[in-house]
């Protein structure tokens, strides 16, 4: 059974600071997703990481993937209040015609305060 674990689960940051969210998964997968969810809203896709060593950046967020270590990181640079949300990583599993199901981490609730 595929397990996906995020840490920390709760993150309170000051504006301007840097921090990293970690996502570990238990079995081999060839892609990993990061999603953002605002309260009462659905999931917004942030990054898709397809290969070992992949790095993607958008604004103050940068995601990376190490498939050998089964680890992805989401790095936040110089946090601003607008980044406050819940962040999920998700790993694809399933084979053959079932390929594509997502297993999600528990989510990291990020709060950025002045």
């Amino acid at each position, binding site marked *: 059974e595929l397990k996906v674990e995020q840490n920390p689960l709760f993150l309170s940051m000051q504006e301007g600071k840097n921090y990293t969210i970690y996502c570990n998964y238990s079995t081999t997968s*060839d892609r990993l997703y990061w*999603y953002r969810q605002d309260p009462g809203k*659905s*999931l917004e896709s942030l990054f898709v990481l397809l290969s070992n060593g992949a790095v993607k950046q958008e604004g103050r967020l940068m995601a990376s993937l190490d498939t050998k270590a089964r680890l992805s990181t989401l790095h936040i640079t110089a946090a601003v209040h607008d980044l406050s949300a819940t962040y999920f990583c998700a790993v694809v599993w399933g084979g053959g015609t079932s*390929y*594509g199901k*997502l297993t*999600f981490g528990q989510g990291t609730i990020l709060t950025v305060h002045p």
Partner: protein
Amino acid sequence: GAGVSQSPSNKVTEKGKDVELRCDPISGHTALYWYRQSLGQGLEFLIYFQGNSAPDKSGLPSDRFSAERTGGSVSTLTIQRTQQEDSAVYLCASSLRLAGKSYNEQFFGPGTRLTVL
């Protein structure tokens, strides 16, 4: 263009009643997924439709849950004899599967919040 839509946005029902939740995927998307988000269990996969293939129902929690997809487009998730533990947000996602490509980004709808009293 239009994204994934779901209806209703909120549904309150009494224990023991049946409910139907609807999902309209992005036009042309061949794959459709249902997930459930609850406080206790987080985000869980329920069922997956891909084209004309038999659906993958491996995530359905009990035989009270069923889903169908008509004409390769709209999907309905049905929960019979609802229980309080069914209270959750039900999310639908769709994606485009292209021949020769493994890229499979899923786009999520706004969800249906189900409350079972």
